[in-house]
């Protein structure tokens, strides 16, 4: 049932609750790390794996919503599932608007929690994948010469080689050489693929 492997963090000041939740996750083969206070979690180094955070709303001295805000400010993009013994509508709305995955009221059904975790891990996994792809593309793009980047922009905008040559004031042959070089360096199988890459990299459409 565990489609995506990943790491789950639990922050709850109630030991009974956090241990029970950890036990549920263990029963379905999910690794979980528990924390009694958010400070402990923030101090931990985050590994580059799909992960999510189960966060109690009412914590001693700080609210879960506050923790959410601090994570966003610190650039830590971890999906959050809130759990609370007492939820009101404004609190829920605020949490969801700030990007929470789910808002569960104690005592929750284990399946609801697991579904939310699954959703969060998938999302995080996807996000990480996209981030990796983009990084790869960026390094390939950075291997292009300035002239090639120029040509790539024009190619991505759908300009024929002939026109590109006249725009750049070179021969059509030279332009073609540039294009094949670009395709090779960027590991693009087709012009369409190259166009998508340019889009992802937000390469300017025109010079």
């Amino acid at each position, binding site marked *: 049932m565990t489609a995506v492997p990943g790491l789950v963090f639990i922050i709850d000041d109630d030991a*009974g609750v956090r241990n*029970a939740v950890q*036990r549920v996750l263990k*029963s379905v083969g999910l690794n979980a790390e528990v924390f009694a206070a958010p400070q402990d979690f923030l101090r931990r180094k985050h590994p580059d794996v799909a992960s999510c955070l189960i966060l109690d709303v009412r914590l001693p001295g700080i609210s879960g919503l506050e923790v959410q805000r601090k994570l966003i400010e610190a650039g830590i993009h971890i999906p959050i599932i809130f759990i609370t013994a007492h939820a009101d509508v404004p609190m829920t709305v605020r949490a969801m608007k700030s990007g929470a995955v789910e808002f569960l009221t104690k*005592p929750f059904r*284990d399946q609801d929690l697991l579904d939310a975790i699954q959703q969060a891990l998938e999302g995080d996994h996807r996000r990480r994948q996209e981030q990796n792809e983009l990084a790869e593309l960026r390094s390939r793009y950075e291997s292009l010469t300035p002239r090639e980047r120029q040509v790539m922009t024009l190619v991505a905008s759908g300009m024929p080689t002939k026109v590109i040559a006249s725009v750049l004031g070179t021969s059509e042959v030279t332009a073609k050489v540039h294009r094949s070089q670009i395709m090779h360096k960027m590991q693009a199988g087709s012009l369409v693929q190259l166009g998508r890459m340019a889009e992802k990299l937000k390469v300017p459409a025109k010079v």
Partner: protein
Amino acid sequence: MSQSASKRRTCSYDMVEVRLDGYTLTGTEGEMYFCNARCLCIWAVQLATRPNLADGRKLPGVQLTQPTGEQRTFADVRELAKWSVANALGGLELMSRDLQESKTRLEEAQRIAHVGHWVWDLGNDGLTWSDETYRIFGLRPQERPMNVEAFQKMIHPEDREFFLRATQEARGGARPDVEYRIVRPSGEVRIVYSQGAVIRDVPGQPRQRFGTVQDITDRKRAEEELQQTQFYLVEGQRLVHMGSWALNPSGLFEYWSQELFKIYGLDPQNGAPTLEQYLATVHPQDRDFMANTLERMHAERIGCDVKKRIVRPDGEQRYLRCVGIPLFEGEVFKGVLGTAIDITEQELLTEKLERQQAHLTEAQKLIHTGSWAWRVRDPTAVEVSEELYRIFGFDPAEGAPTWEQYFERVHPEDGLKLTGIRERAIAEKAYYDHEFRILLPNGKVKWIRTVGHPVLSNIGDLEGFVGISTDITELKSAEQEREKRRQLEADLTHINRVSTLGEMAASLAHEIKQPITAAVSNAEACLRWLARDQPDMLEMREAATETVKEARRAAEIINRTRSLFQKEVIKREAVDVNEVINEVASLVREEGARYSISLRTEFGTGLPKVSANRVQLQQVLINLMLNGIEAMKDTPGELIIKSQRDEQGRVLISVRDTGVGLPAENADKIFNAFFTTKPQGIGMGLAISRSIVESHGGRIWAQANLARGATFHFTLPHERVISA
């Protein structure tokens, strides 16, 4: 000379008339015994003293200058006489007539002047009196002949001895000028003054005494009266510390009375002071003013009425009031006459009074209280202090308003009651204390508290009332403010109680949900391990153990909460149920009014007090009343709260509504916790009420009304039963 004397003596003398009104008495030898002044005048002769004429010496030759300027010389008086006779115009008849006329005139003159004359013949002690003398002695003129003995009997006994002594001296030739009292036959006492002279015969022996007698009674009395008046005046001035003074037309002091010197502390020996001396006595601060006043009095010929201070030589300062009036004789200014009164004591008293009055006024202003007094005989004549004008919105500068003006200011709704209270106070001669409103012309309403005290005469009759009126508007609004705040506080307490309950419920829920969550999650984990192809017994045991532990934790939390509530000490006291119902009804009445529900109380009389916790009892009543109102929200009706004694002597309280009534099913469950038919209800009200009533040893139940709605009853044992 008296008529009788001349009759008797004519034979001894030649009587010659010289001129109409001049005559002489001469002897046969030409010697002159007497000539009258007129005669001498006609003769134009200067003679030595007339008594010398009576010495009988022959006069030397005389020269006579007639009025015509013709001069004649006569050898002696006889010659002169003869000439005179020859030139006589009349004769004896004429002389006699003239004599008669003179005598009449003399008598007339004597009558007018109250002067009589007398002749005392020293030879036989016979007395010849003129008519006026008789009158003076209270007799008819010439009523009877008089002699010395009869005369002496008429002298006042106290003066007789003194008179005789004077008379003895008179016999010796001294002038018997005496003042003595006589007693008239009518008993009236008169004072007379007598003067006399001795007439001697030819050899020089005293032959007669001649004199006048004058009735000086009136003058004497006037004198005495004047003296008395003078005495009184001086005494009076001394008593009232009043002096008098006069300024002459030149504006200088002409006269200062003894008392005035005393007032100024000056020596009367030095006489009235000069203006400079006078101004020096005036207090330096008043000196210019007095100098101006004196100048003006003199220049404009006017009087004065001024108050000033003087400094006596010994340094003592006195206040004087000087009043002067100008004197005129016809058009002529005669100066100014005036008085000066020492008003130091009055002035100091006045100053003190004014100071006290000012303090009183200020004090009244501070405490917004005016004082007043009125008499029963004339209730419209009200005496009031300044502050009362202000309170009633009258300007003190415009003087005292009339009773009607005051009464017009009383609020129309309170006027009748005020009149009633006044009338009752008069009838009962009683103290009164009343609050009423006044309405000022600007529409402002003030609250006044008036307290009146009867004033009784010695015999206990009511003379009037004195009292005070206080502006209590601020107090009143403060009172209303306090009442509002009290209401608010009561509301807040209620809200507080409700919200605390809500908070507590939320907190409790949170606490309990933690172990429940843990228990549920552990149980679910256990189920998942169990569902595996190869169940992990170790994990399952651990999860199950945790489940049990967490469930126990939940139970523990609930126990802890209950014991927390039980720790609260519920104090009980003797409570008057009706009083508590009233308190709560006043709180709830407004809530009812919002839904057009009226609240009515029916109190049983003579109810025993119950031993209860007042706040809890209030809570039960609030719950039942709010329930009733809630039930009638859509169908306005009446909520009746009734207190009575039941058959067992317990206090029975019923809250009856005309609302939706009891639920058809589950009517027996309404007192259970969390049972509710209301959308917003939590189902605790009746459960709590039951818990409270039962803890007090009472019972609570509900009944459906025959017509509409329901009635909730509860009983409370009375105090003695509980304590027993």
